[in-house]
């Protein structure tokens, strides 16, 4: 019900993967929408997908909720964590632990993808 794939999309592929056992994905989606819009991209093009089983997690390489991928790359690549249904532990830029990624990491990942897209056109 949350999937919103824009077939005519020309910008980077942006995905948010979430699991229902961890409530932080809604706040993360709001942050992601803001950052996508700020980058001049369409927030409606974000693909939001639920990961609901251990099998799905293994297939997706999903190491925790929420996970944001831009052009298939995790915005904070996991450091060897196993795939599974769990809440993801992020480190903010000031060193604090958080259930949500640092908005600046989201912004930088998007900016890098936009720049890469522009460079390859």
């Amino acid at each position, binding site marked *: 019900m949350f999937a919103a794939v824009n077939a005519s999309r020309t910008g980077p592929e942006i995905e948010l993967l979430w699991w229902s056992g*961890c409530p932080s994905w809604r706040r993360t989606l709001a942050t992601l929408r803001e950052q996508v819009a700020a980058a001049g991209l369409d927030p409606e093009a974000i693909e939001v997908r639920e990961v609901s089983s251990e099998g799905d997690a293994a297939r997706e390489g999903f190491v925790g909720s929420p996970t944001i991928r831009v052009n298939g790359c995790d915005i904070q690549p996991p450091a060897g964590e196993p795939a599974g249904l769990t*809440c993801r532990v992020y480190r903010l830029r000031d060193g604090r*632990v*958080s*259930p949500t990624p640092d908005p600046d990491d989201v912004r930088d990942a998007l900016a890098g993808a936009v720049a890469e897209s522009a460079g390859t056109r």
Partner: protein
Amino acid sequence: MSLARDFALGDQAPPLELPDTEGREQSLEGGDDASATVVVWTCNHCPYALAWHDRLVDVARDYADRGVRFLAVNSNDAERYPADSLDAMRGRVAEEDWPFPYLHDSSQDAARAWGAETTPHVFALDSERRLRYEGAPDPDYGDPAHEAIWLREALDHILAGEPPPRPRTEPVGCSIKWKP
């Protein structure tokens, strides 16, 4: 998973008899001289529990000389979440300077009896071990400036012999990881 439990605000809390990371049995009764007791469900793997941990440690230290006792409990299924195994709990306590014992609820009976829903989930009891506050430490896991204000507010009122003005808030965090 939502649990039906048989105690409510004002009721005496269920028994709590669990081993800590050193193998010592801890119980509510063991704190008979406590002016208040805080029992917090927490764990090693959950980012919410980790984000609030230092604030809870600060509360424990700040209220220790007023006779407030703290107990932390981990009830998660360690088979599926190895970071919450007894060994991992023991390792964390050894690495960090915890001012309260970390109890292992391997059967998950305590979590069921208390109706613990998330990590963290805070319960504050008065000197007669009656429930006076439960919920989150403060309004936002992401803002350390809140300093566990809801818990501090509850403790200040409990210690003054008054009912907390905000006896219940929504616990926020990772769900308790129940065994299949």
